[in-house]
């Protein structure tokens, strides 16, 4: 059985639940089974927010992450709150601003927020940049499926912007692998 558990975390408003949805949809495009769940506080913005995705070639019973293979965190608060229980060979991906330490896991620290805010100039694409990084580093879904899933979900008129965000994220992920 080929099963992967992914946790995306950050601050409410960064679009990580949408990122989880897109990742799950990409897995379905790849012909796999996927479940997405989320956890967030009552506030619409701020606070720690997480989205979880399980991708498997088989039926998925329990929908929440128990053995996290891939953990993404865009804020210190979410790293501290949700960064526990990562599998021994699991991968951690954090934004540059996160002060991260792990005895067991490989950590990739990437300037995701800075790229969205200062290079692309649109803070709203931070989730798409993050997805690009994550998929380049893990190949959890195919790049083609990811792009199709992103374009299916983003608002009309923002396709080129999101494609650019995805490409820049992907390139940063490839780079971080080296």
């Amino acid at each position, binding site marked *: 059985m080929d099963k992967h558990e992914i946790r995306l975390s950050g601050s409410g408003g960064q679009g990580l639940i949408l990122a989880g*949805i897109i990742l*799950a*949809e990409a897995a*379905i495009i790849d012909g796999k*089974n*996927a*479940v*997405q*769940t*989320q*956890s*967030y*506080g*009552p506030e619409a913005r701020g606070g720690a927010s997480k989205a979880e995705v399980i991708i498997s070639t088989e039926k*998925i*019973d*329990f*929908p*929440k992450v*128990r053995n996290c293979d891939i953990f993404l965190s865009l804020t210190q608060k979410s790293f501290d709150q949700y960064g526990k229980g990562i599998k021994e060979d699991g991968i951690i991906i954090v934004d540059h601003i996160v002060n991260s330490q792990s005895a067991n896991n490989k950590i990739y620290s990437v300037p995701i927020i800075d790229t969205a805010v200062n290079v692309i100039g649109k803070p709203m694409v931070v989730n798409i940049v993050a997805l690009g990084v994550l998929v380049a580093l893990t190949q959890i879904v195919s790049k083609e499926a990811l792009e199709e899933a992103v374009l299916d979900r983003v608002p009309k008129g923002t396709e080129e912007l999101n494609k650019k965000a995805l490409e820049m994220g992907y390139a940063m992920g490839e780079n971080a692998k080296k």
Partner: protein
Amino acid sequence: MKRKAQLMQGNEACVEGAIAAGMRFFAGYPITPSTEIAEISAEKLPCVGGKFIQMEDEIASMAAIIGASLTGLKSMTATSGPGFSLKQENLGYASISEVPCVVVNVQRGGPSTGLPTSPAQGEIMQARWGTHGDHPVIALTPSSVKETFELTIRAFNLAEKYRMPVILLMDEVIGHMRERVELPEISELEIANRKRPGVSKDAYKPYKADEDLIPPMANFGEGYRYHVTGLVHDETGFPSNSSSVADKLVRRLMDKIETHKDDIIQWEEQNTEDADIVIVSIGGVSRASDTAMKMLRAKGLKVGTFRPITVWPFPEKRLQELAERVKTFVVAEMNLGQMVLEVERIIKDKAEIKRVNKVNGEAVYPEEITAVIEEVL
């Protein structure tokens, strides 16, 4: 509706199912974690000629769907715990006036406004006895996104067939979860509609039941003699203080469901043939039970699962049969012990009963169930 494999949320599947079943009226007051049901209904109903109304509160929402259903529209409302409490009075009204409608409750942490974004199953008993007086209840509990689609349709079908409110008792785990589904073609679905009167407009008695104890239902306002009240009433629908009328009405309401239990009750069981231990759970908790069962089976332990799909009426007969040979039942639920009361009532001392309970706003995890079972052994 897209027909290929797609990622769909439980709440979204509820609306898809409702519209497929023929829902053409929704009145509600949005509340987490059911909000998407109102939101998507508002978007989709106008596209099929239906109506969506956001009411001033949950009490009015419940009243509105009763009114709309009386005029012939299949109607639904959706809420969570705090709203479900408010709907109880009018749920009783729909019961005694025999108005088909569907009430969705996506359960969250309680009591009161509790934990808005967190799962719970604290309304198992409220669904049964929340409104006062003796009344029948049908409550369905989906445990997947696809089953939410199917059971929403079934909720409408049972409401129409038996002329009564039907509760779709979801929980936040299933309501907010998204998973891969392939929905069936509309042509593959069985859709039931209320029984229409076979007599002239002036001979019609809105509460004169046929042999099956279900009265045919005319649309209010289309010219049939009609009276609707929450008071005890005779066959004409007009109030009565007669003890014999009261006795006959309340008993018929209960018998209407009691005599059709076999048509209504559904459950799912897995690996019960040789099971020493059976996990009993509904809704989101069943997903943890399935994983727990597989973990224990992998260790060679004889564990099965029993999942009531109609939590009301409860699949009593089947549970009694299982209790003849199963040694231990483990009842897992996101409350401090509600469904277990029904299991204890049914099983009595024929088997050992263990509990797994959780009220901290998190889902029940498989390891919490396996831990209790490994203690038993």
